[in-house]
């Protein structure tokens, strides 16, 4: 119920924002998007990929663009880029069942490793953050803020003592919630602007123990493997695999989500 209301508000805000930014250029890109979707429907994956990539290069996107681009790459047999774009779609729209299904399906074709189970509250927290998209959380921040203001108003203006008490504690609780939501929103925004997650795109790469050619081989990784970037050193990146192992990869071999 509350999610629906939030979604409705979110949609209204989105439409407002979008109509504010609507311009001739975005209209042309909108046409390109329709064209790209038609290419993809007709199975012309190469053309579809080109057109989607063009739209992205113009600085425009949404979850569907990434989703369809990932689909086209998958159909073309490019597993790494398919996963990369599906992951990007998931960031913008964390709860879309199609995106989640396709990601699971694609990951099943990559290297399988023993995933380190996160502590329950970490998993819970990550799941909680994924309930809404980054903009969804921003809307929640606004709504909580307004509710907190209402509570403060109740506290200030009510004649009735009970009402004023409710207002006071309500304002406290809502403020805390608001700060939590704000933290999540900022966190999700930075995840998109500067991601620490990456997908391996080279068909086969060597995970090295040190950032130079002399490092011994730890493992051979294949296209589509998900890694977390720990640190960067020149053309090397220290990455953590899903099974918890840490090693070094060439920056050219992967792309940030």
């Amino acid at each position, binding site marked *: 119920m509350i999610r629906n209301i939030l979604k409705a508000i979110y949609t209204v805000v989105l439409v407002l924002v979008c109509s504010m930014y609507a311009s001739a250029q975005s209209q042309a890109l*909108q046409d390109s998007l329709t064209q790209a979707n038609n290419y993809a429907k007709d199975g012309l994956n190469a053309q579809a990929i080109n057109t989607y990539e063009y739209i992205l290069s113009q600085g425009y996107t949404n979850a569907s663009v990434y989703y369809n681009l990932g689909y086209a790459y998958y159909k073309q047999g490019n597993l790494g880029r398919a996963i990369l774009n599906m992951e990007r779609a998931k960031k913008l729209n964390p709860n879309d069942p199609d995106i989640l299904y396709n990601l699971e399906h694609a990951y099943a074709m990559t290297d399988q490793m023993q995933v380190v189970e996160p502590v329950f509250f970490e998993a819970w927290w990550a799941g909680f953050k994924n309930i809404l998209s980054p903009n969804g959380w921003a809307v929640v*921040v606004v709504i909580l803020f307004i509710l907190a*203001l209402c509570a403060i*108003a109740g506290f200030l203006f009510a004649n009735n003592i009970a009402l004023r008490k409710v207002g006071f504690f309500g304002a406290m609780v809502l403020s805390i919630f608001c700060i939590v939501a704000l933290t999540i929103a900022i966190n999700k925004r930075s995840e998109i602007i500067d991601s620490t997650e990456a997908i391996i795109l080279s068909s086969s790469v060597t995970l090295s123990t040190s950032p130079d050619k002399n490092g011994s081989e730890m493992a051979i990784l294949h296209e589509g493997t998900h890694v977390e970037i720990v640190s960067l050193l020149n053309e090397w990146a220290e990455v953590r695999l899903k099974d918890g192992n840490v090693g070094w990869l060439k920056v050219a071999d992967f792309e940030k989500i």
Partner: protein
Amino acid sequence: MMTVNKHILRFITLSLIFCLTSLGLMAQTSFTGQAPSTVTVGENFRVIYKVNADVNNIRLPELDGINILYGPSTQHSTSYSSINGKVTTSVENSFTYVMRIDKVGTYNIDPATITVEGQPVRSNAITINVIKDASSSSNATQGGQKQQSQPGTAQSSGNKDDIIIVQSLNKSSVYEGEAVVLTIKIYTNADLNNIFDAKEPSLDNFVSQDLMEDRSLQFQLGEYNGRTYHVALAGRYLLIPQKSGNITIDPTEYEFGVKKRIRNGGGGFFSGFFDDIQIYRQRVASKSLSLNVKPLPQPRPAGFSGGVGTNFKFNVSATPDQVETDNSIQVKVAVSGEGNLKILSLPKPQFHQDFDSFDPKESSNLKAGANGFMGSREAEYLIIPRRDGDFEIPQLSFSYFNTEQGKYVTLTQGPFPIHVAKGANSGNNQSTQVFQGGQREQVQYVGKDIRYLHTNDTELKSKDDFFLFSGAFWTCIFCPLAILIACFFAYRKKIKDNANMMAVKKRRANKVAKKRLKKAQSFITKNERENFFDEVMRAMWGYLSDKLSIPMSELTKDNAREKMLEHSISEADADEFINVLDACEFARYAPAELSDKMEDIYNRAADVIGRMEK
């Protein structure tokens, strides 16, 4: 032919022996030289001299154009045998030379000489024919030569060591899956007795089929490398390569038992009858073969299931095409032609889920031939429709690689529409099935793929377009905040104003009360009791309301005392105030005699207001 030859040979041998024995000389000493009658240029060959006496002083004649590479190597053996109680000792020395001739031609090696008990003994002369190096599978026999022979056999049939095994393929280059025939032949002039050991190549990379029904060796005369041999077919295999690349077929190796006639030392007139036939073993190997297997071209069509060959025919039938539910339909999938029919897989038809289908019954009628398997293969499916309606067995396609045309050919059949009418009992069955519960099938997922595109057009957004910290975001934050702050200040001002008003009222309370009381006083003089008490009560209530800043409507006699005490008015004054009010109320309705005098009330009221004002 052979037997005639043998007869002649035997005759010559017999007569020769007869001569020798009748001469009675040198019967004890035999000295023979052996060499292959034909060698190729540059080939190493052996010349062996054997003598049945204990000597070691062999002298070779001058050899013109013949190189001695090695020799002589001597072998000495002594054997004792007891035949019919007579013990004979035989001694044998052999001298082996390895020689080579580098020019084509006919070479004679003059008799070699040894000295036995002071007498020189000469061997036979040897003639060697040197030919050009031909395609040379005859070389293969060289390695296998090993002899252990008895003296006195120089006269036995000419090229007794010549056993050649030849492997051949009918094609040198084929496509993966294309049939090729491997033939193994034995060429020989030796008198073969039996085969002790046969090692045929392991045909691991092929599907192979033996094309021979009768494995016994049937010798016929034939020619090989310009020479006449007895030829027998030792094996014929149909091979279907299973991988591409250069495939090597290992040599075939046989160990033959070769019959050899041996003269008994002394001999006699009838020695031919008493000749021993000895069998010695000889191991011969063929050369290995290599076959170039070309991979099938890419891309392969969708319906390709491994078929390679020619003249393939594809036939699918579904009968009958109109049935009632629970009656069976027969679907036949048949492929016929010539090629690797035995190993290709037949296309599998897809049946609607409402059809029960059973594992197919497969049958084949194949004959192996030089171009692979000929004939047909068939799979027969039995399907039973469980629900009525119009169904379709989808189009079925079969692709094969045509080796004649060098390209893929796709054959299609169908689709086959099938009309299923409701059977007589099916209505009842349906309802019982539903209630039996267990009859319902779980949905079968045939193939899983990623989910389809999101095809509805969605609004594009700028990549950096975040609602958080955007203009709209700050607007949404600051507008309500500003409204709240504005409200707060407005509220504060209103409170302040109210407070001011009350202060004024408080200040004016005494004045108003006095004014009212003055008016009441005027009623005393006029002796209007009711108006007087009304006026006093109004004055007192009005005073209290202004004094305590409580609206008149909220004041009652019940809460007045409390409120007064809250506003730090002494208990005595509060009580007096209430008492005066009670007195007024009472006096208003009571007869004049019973009530207090108007002057008393007036004074008390004025007193209590005055006290409260201090």
